[in-house]
């Protein structure tokens, strides 16, 4: 137990150090690299939140784009039409994600996994079509931000802060009674209900928390762009990329999202001139992971050294 605590505090120290380094990074990095850093931070927030839903809660969502898009639209709308300061607006964007999850929960959460996945996809596409067709939301051309956005470096700091919040939420969910509740509901909803767990509430809490974090990330994305339109903010790419990163990195593992974000973004940079090839490769890797490595690269890294040792000592 003491050893575990020590390991955890060492992990925390390393985490704080890493986040501090990320905070300094904008001062040293070139503009392009800082852009990539910001994209990675936002992708990591999305991947961690998605892993909370799917990896720990068994809720495979194809609706990342609905929270991302909503957060972006709420942020731009509030910045344009109110005098609220930026931190409050980002909080409001996060809140909108939680509200969306709560409103959608009667339709999406009472059913078993199958319908949740397609339901989240339907919700995301429905929101996109609403934004395209309703002129008050800017229609197909979208909205422009009226206020001056923060500098790129400041955006990175905000993103680092959001990532820290995300990691704290994950830490809380992975190492407390919450993780037991989530896994109980994921593994057998009926038995969990028999034991006095309320599956609907547990799922709703995870869904709302993940959606809030995703919406905040969407808000930061909108802040970075300065102009948003429905095809991009509500694009399926958010949902596809997030899912692929976690599945390739390691579904339900703590290290999975980081590994997945780095791998997928790295291959994206290498294949920057061939976006179709990059996406096809991503899909292929997902299928391979499902078949041969259900816990992704993180799972392989945890298992392979032991196997290798067993083979060398056995021979």
């Amino acid at each position, binding site marked *: 137990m003491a050893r575990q605590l020590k390991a955890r505090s060492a992990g925390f120290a390393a985490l704080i150090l890493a986040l501090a380094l990320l905070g300094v990074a904008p001062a040293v990095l070139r503009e392009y690299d800082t852009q990539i850093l910001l994209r990675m931070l936002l992708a990591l927030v999305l991947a961690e939140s998605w892993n909370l839903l799917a990896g720990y809660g068994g809720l495979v969502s194809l609706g990342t784009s609905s929270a991302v898009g909503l957060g972006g639209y709420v942020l731009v709308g509030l910045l344009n039409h109110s005098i609220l300061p930026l931190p409050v607006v980002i909080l409001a964007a996060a809140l909108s994600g939680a509200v969306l999850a709560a409103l959608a929960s009667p339709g999406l959460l009472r059913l078993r996994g199958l319908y949740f996945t397609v339901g989240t*996809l*339907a919700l995301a596409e429905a929101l996109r*079509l609403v934004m395209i067709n309703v002129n008050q939301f800017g229609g197909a051309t979208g909205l422009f931000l009226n206020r001056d956005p923060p500098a790129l470096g400041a955006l990175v700091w905000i993103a680092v802060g959001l990532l820290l919040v995300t990691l704290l939420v994950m830490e809380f969910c992975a190492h407390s009674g919450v993780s037991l509740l989530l896994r109980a509901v994921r593994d057998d909803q009926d038995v969990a209900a028999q034991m006095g767990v309320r599956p609907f509430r547990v799922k709703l809490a995870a869904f709302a928390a993940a959606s809030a974090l995703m919406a905040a990330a969407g808000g930061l994305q909108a802040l970075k762009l300065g102009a948003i339109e429905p095809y991009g903010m509500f694009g399926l790419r958010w949902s596809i990329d997030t899912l692929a990163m976690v599945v390739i990195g390691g579904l339900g593992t703590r290290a999975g999202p980081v590994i997945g974000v780095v791998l997928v973004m790295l291959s994206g940079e290498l294949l920057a001139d061939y976006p179709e090839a990059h996406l096809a490769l991503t899909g292929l890797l997902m299928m391979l992971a499902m078949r041969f490595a259900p816990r992704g690269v993180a799972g392989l890294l945890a298992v392979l050294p032991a196997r290798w040792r067993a083979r060398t000592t056995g021979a």
Partner: protein
Amino acid sequence: MSIEAAASSLVVGVLLGGIFSLTALGLSLVLGVMRLVNLAHGEFLVLGAYAGYYLLTVTGIDPLLGLPLIAAAMGLVAAPLYRFLIQPLMGRGVEAPMMTMFGLSIVLQNLYTAAFSADTRSIETGYSALALNLGPVTVGLVYVMGFAISIGIVGLIHLLVSRTAFGRDLRASAQDAGAAAIVGVNVPRVQMLTFALGAACAGAGGTLSGLVNSFTPASGAAYLLNSFAVVVLGGLGSVLGTLLAGITVGILQSLGGVLFGDGYRDLVALLVFLAVLIVRPQGFMAGRG
């Protein structure tokens, strides 16, 4: 909009709905028999549309005459997909095969873009512009033909499921795969044939969709969601329920288009889907374990 135009629009809705029932049938069969949400179903439909398009432009064969060919080819392609992608994952929960099919959908969509370009296409035959005048109502001939063919195929599948030995095995596997295996049903074989049958339906339905509407490599998501709306509305395991649900969704889409503008047509199917999930939260798989 005049009364005549509105009436024509509604008739077109019914006719499109018939095609929807065919495009949704494959999804419904696969979901019912193997509890698999085939997230690549939309891409199967898009492949059917491209098959019809290239059959016509390259060989000159009429896509309606080539329909059996397209369906057979899709079935033949789908059988090994089941064998190598899905069967190894059976028994590992519903998520693993579903996400595998999602990976396949991403691969296929990007292969289409690379191979066929991202251009919007539609299948233009010699009779594509012909219209039928039935009293005050005017509808395109392709809608009527697509409807008739779809109804015919759906009817045949209904007979296959309800009257044949294969259909009996299929229904047994859908109800309880374990019990079916005990009484001697070769469940993996039934599942493979069902998957192939679903893909064949998607091939034919995709070609018909390509005849009546334009499509792109990215049309799969809209096709999938439209089909899924029909499936949840019609209920699983009922071929005739799928037919009625398809026509209902077609009518509602046309109503949405007439009342709010064409931009809302796709939104209607999504709202139907979400509404059914809220109104019937127990789902249509309740009571089936």
